[in-house]
């Protein structure tokens, strides 16, 4: 964003006093809105808005081969693209390093957080498994993309129903059957830092001031399943641990808040 130096200074001054341009407290999220089923052609899909940030995610499933080292597990493929429409600074073309990082951080959260019971996606061991494609698109960028993408992905997974499989292992998309076997709901929360302050859910404008970020993904039981420090932020060991605790607590609140119903269903299993 072509913000003036003045704006940057103003935001910094506010943050130093623990305040933000839009009046939120430092660890307060903007309003989160989830809309399920934005494409009926997808096995599952969702749109998540966090303030003006708008991300869509979809699930498509195909039958494919398992990886040789996990013959009894399904395969997960995650991609992300920052659409050129999402911000003036985004260029069309192949995903850049930021989009690749986002896809990989979200993917690791889903994968290592055991969001999906991958063993239930095995069809014939060593030969045929379900391949789950998670595709994430940023439609409007107003900051905190990883958290929004993580929620949109989780929402799409929770929305998804598996297509029917014919006898000769062809996919029959006209008949959707059971929901995807969801075992956990890992939620990424990204922490930024200004001097000693930790800040959550930054806007695009704030992110011009606060370049670095630290994302922590937490499971239902409070265990950590993915972390990523990047964009040129240096933290002391104490800051890291403080940020991890803040992220874990926030993750838990968001989970209750937007996935409350599904959480019960998942916990029951």
């Amino acid at each position: 964003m072509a913000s003036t130096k003045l704006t940057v200074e103003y935001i910094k001054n506010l943050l130093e006093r623990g305040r933000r341009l839009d009046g939120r407290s430092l660890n307060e999220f903007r309003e989160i809105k989830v809309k399920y089923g934005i494409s009926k052609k997808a096995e599952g899909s969702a749109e998540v808005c966090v303030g003006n940030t708008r991300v869509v995610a979809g699930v498509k499933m195909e039958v494919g081969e398992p990886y040789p080292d996990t013959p009894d597990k399904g395969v997960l493929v995650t991609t992300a693209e920052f659409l050129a429409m999402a911000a003036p600074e985004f260029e069309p073309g192949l995903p850049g390093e930021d989009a690749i990082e986002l896809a990989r951080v979200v993917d690791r959260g889903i994968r290592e957080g055991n969001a999906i019971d991958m063993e239930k996606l095995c069809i014939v061991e060593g030969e045929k498994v379900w391949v789950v494609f998670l595709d994430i698109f940023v439609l409007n960028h107003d900051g905190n993309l990883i958290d929004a993408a993580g929620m949109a992905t989780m929402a799409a997974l929770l929305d998804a129903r598996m297509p029917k499989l014919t006898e000769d292992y062809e996919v029959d998309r006209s008949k959707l059957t059971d929901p995807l076997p969801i075992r956990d709901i890992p939620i990424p929360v990204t922490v930024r830092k200004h001097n000693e302050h930790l800040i959550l859910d930054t806007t695009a404008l704030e992110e011009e001031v606060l370049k670095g970020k630290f994302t922590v993904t937490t499971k239902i039981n409070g265990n950590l399943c993915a972390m990523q420090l990047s964009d040129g932020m240096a933290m002391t060991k104490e800051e890291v641990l403080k940020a991890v605790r803040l992220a874990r607590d926030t993750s838990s609140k968001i989970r209750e808040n937007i996935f409350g119903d599904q959480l019960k269903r998942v916990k029951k299993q």
Partner: protein
Amino acid sequence: MSDKPSKDFHENITDRLRPDGRKPDDFRPIRIEVGVIKRADGSAYVEFGKTRVVAAVYGPEPMHPRHLADPEKAVLICRYNMLPFSVEERKKPGPDRRSIEISKVVKDALSTVVVLEEFPKCMISVDMVVLEADAGTRVAALTAASLALADAGIPMREMISAIACGRANGQIVVDLTKEEEDAEDAVDVPVAMSSLTKRISLLQMDGDLTIEEFEAILDKASKSCVKIHAMQRDALLKKYKKEGEEVDIDGEY
């Protein structure tokens, strides 16, 4: 698709109901919204039944890379893309030959109304994203793009409205679904028309039609475009009213 004109051609007038219960001239439920992408200079959302498209405009801004700039007018850049999960079989992300062609004909159509001469050395970018595809995505995209340009305040001589008409199951029909497009005798003709001079700027066809059938389709399409334009107008007015602005929407956009 048969070599001969459909036997059922004259049954057309009987207004037999279509698979989804519509009459031949009925649109699917249409929803149009302006200003849906906050960071963009202009944007619009268009829904024709289960076909859903978002378009956003950036510009005019200096052309880059600079050696592609036109010293006499703005360069119009259009990108049409389908999300991987907008279709039955997952589409690999990124442009393919089909989307490159659609981007081109949409750009060609828009360039007949946008006052590009006003912004030499600049570029105006139009991005269209198909969230869900159930036939008619290019006309929905063009309808949305035209609105997004108006929303961005880009000067246009007139608005462009688009719809697909064609033949399916022996009838000439308006706004075909994917199911109808898959009919044995289906022919799909996407058409775009301008709001004031009623000139056609996008027209594609593949299939097998007599000239008479084509004429009937073109006729239905041009009447439908007039209706689409009224909806576009309403959507724009709705947004500007919200913002409390006075607008004379019948003149230049």
